[in-house]
């Protein structure tokens, strides 16, 4: 075992029946770190969490916690506490009994349990609700109780299985920050499963993006957002506009050839892994700037070469106002892209879209299944 991460899963393979859900996946989590497992449904993120919790047994691979091999340990021998998407509160017990149950199992004296329950309730804003049953609480309060129940036993690792996805948007936003603040204050190690990109970005120290049972990328929110390593990650992180380009990668420069709908451009390589030939360019709606051109100027010319920016030529198809800025659907040849602009541009106008190098994600064009990648985007 290389390294001494607090929690480490190495090469774990998990399957149900004949299928494989996790394929030789590895994950390391440091003490006190908040890691988000992000992915669309069916990517294996919940399976990974449940395997760490001990509810699934891996077919192969090893899981260790603080240097101890816990691969085959039962869920109750791992000192981890899980918060479930469905809250999974015990309906026949009061809030105080729910929070105190883990301590009762540990044979903590009654007075100590009462003190700890009071402390947790105060910390989570549940004071005064201790005698209520879960059925008499709101969704947000229920999830707080579930969180309190997990925190009461002071677990080594807190496992959060989409804890916010059943809540109203507003409650969700405030709980995000509460959970994060609490995690920092208690310096607790947490693994959070979510399919919500923004939630992962806001809450986590590190994001692990999963794609069909494998790690697609593992990095800080800033890294995965600005330097996606694959088209899948770029799409998942919101770069949903796709344009096909041709060009050559040469040393530190990438030369993009002029096409029917784009000007030639010279882009700094900046660590992009590319081979010459066909590229797939991805960018976010807010990353491009949009400027109308006179009809006569809308002919591609190899004379103009964009420096560190890609210029695309297109026609505005649709304009709408989702709030904050105007969103335009722009046809660039066969494909349509979304572009935000401060001022609306009339449909039918020919425009130049300029995507700065820093916001332009270039990948080698997939041999096949390009459509599959561009659609593999969740929420």
């Amino acid at each position, binding site marked *: 075992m290389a390294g001494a991460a607090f929690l480490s899963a190495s090469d774990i393979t998990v399957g149900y029946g004949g299928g494989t859900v996790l394929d030789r996946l590895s994950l390391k989590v440091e003490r006190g770190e908040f890691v988000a497992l992000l992915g669309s449904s069916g990517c294996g993120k919940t399976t990974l969490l449940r395997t760490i919790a001990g509810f699934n047994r891996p077919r192969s691979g090893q899981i260790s916690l603080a240097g101890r091999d816990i691969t085959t340990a039962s869920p109750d021998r791992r000192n*981890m*506490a899980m918060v479930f998407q469905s809250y*999974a509160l015990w309906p026949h017990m009061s809030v105080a009994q729910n929070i105190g*149950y883990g301590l009762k199992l540990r044979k903590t004296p009654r007075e100590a349990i009462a003190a700890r329950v009071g402390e947790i309730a105060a910390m989570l804003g549940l004071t005064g609700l201790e005698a209520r049953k879960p059925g008499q609480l709101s969704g947000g309060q229920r999830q707080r109780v579930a969180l309190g129940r997990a925190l009461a036993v002071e677990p080594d690792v807190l496992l959060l299985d989409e804890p916010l996805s059943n809540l109203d948007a507003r409650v969700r936003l405030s709980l995000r920050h509460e959970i994060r603040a609490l995690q920092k204050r208690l310096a607790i190690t947490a693994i959070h499963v979510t399919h919500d990109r923004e939630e992962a970005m806001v809450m986590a120290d590190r994001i692990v993006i999963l794609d069909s049972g494998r790690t697609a990328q593992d990095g800080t929110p800033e890294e995965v957002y600005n330097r996606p390593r694959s088209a899948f990650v770029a799409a998942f992180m919101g770069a949903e506009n796709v344009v096909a380009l041709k060009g050559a990668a040469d040393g530190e420069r990438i030369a993009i050839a002029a096409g029917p709908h784009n000007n030639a451009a010279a882009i700094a390589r900046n660590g992009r892994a590319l081979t010459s030939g066909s590229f797939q360019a991805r960018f976010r709606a807010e990353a491009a700037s949009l400027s109308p051109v006179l009809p006569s100027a809308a002919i591609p010319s190899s004379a103009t070469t964009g420096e560190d920016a890609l210029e695309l030529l297109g026609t505005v198809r649709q304009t709408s106002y989702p709030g904050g800025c105007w969103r335009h659907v722009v046809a660039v040849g066969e494909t349509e892209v979304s572009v935000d602009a401060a001022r609306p541009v009339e449909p039918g106008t020919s425009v130049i879209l300029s995507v700065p190098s820093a916001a332009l994600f270039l990948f080698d064009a997939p041999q096949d299944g390009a459509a599959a990648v561009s659609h593999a985007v969740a929420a």
Partner: protein
Amino acid sequence: MRDRSIGLLLALPAIATIALLYLMPLMASATGAFATEAGFGIGNFVKTYELYTTDILYTLVIVSLSTVIIAALAVAIAGYLTLGENPAAVEVLRWLYRWPLFIPFIVVGQVLRTFLAKNGLMNNLLVAAGILTPLQTMSFLDWRGIVIAFVWKQTPFVTLLLAGAMAALDRGTIEAARNLGASRLRILFEIVVPQVRTTLFVAMVLSFVTMMSVLSVPLMISAQSPTMITADISFRINAYGDYGVANALGMISLAMTMAVAVFYLRQNLKEKAR
């Protein structure tokens, strides 16, 4: 207004059926319980009290005891089906436990009569195994035989309802407890059973009422005195043509099941009020 009368008209056949086939015989039986040769009076109940007090208590004890044992076994079996970790064992149990459901009470009585008798199969096996000597063997064909027959026949029914309710629980509530370190036994009694207690009550009440009405088992296993109310009713009618006392016994039997039903309804209301 017209719609309402049409609705009433549509329900009329059902109401008439209930009135004719259920309410009228019940009323006839109730009034019959008070009809004596000397006219309307409580003579039948006095006679019943003199002759059958022991049998009434005997019935109450047997059926109550059976209900408690059935509930305990059903919780154990349904609990294992829900929490068991050996898939093969769970599968075998799931397949086996329902069999008695499909066997009629009379056959259960007959099977157990040959099994539990002093020279029956059970004692023969115990003797052959060297656990008992032939002199130590005894017949179980008394109240114990009836309890065994009832438990044998009714446990699958209660288990069926209970296992269904347990399977419908949010697995998360079980996993959360397991995750915090609860043993399976604690999960069963502190997490699972409290959540299905209403189903358990219903199943116990239904089972109690069913057992109160079984005639074949007491007749097959232990028809001598003391015996169960059903056997007494049958005896009063077939041996003496004494419908009065039979009806009185029937009313007492009804009162016992009603008491259980009221207890159940109250429990249900309390649950809803919470």
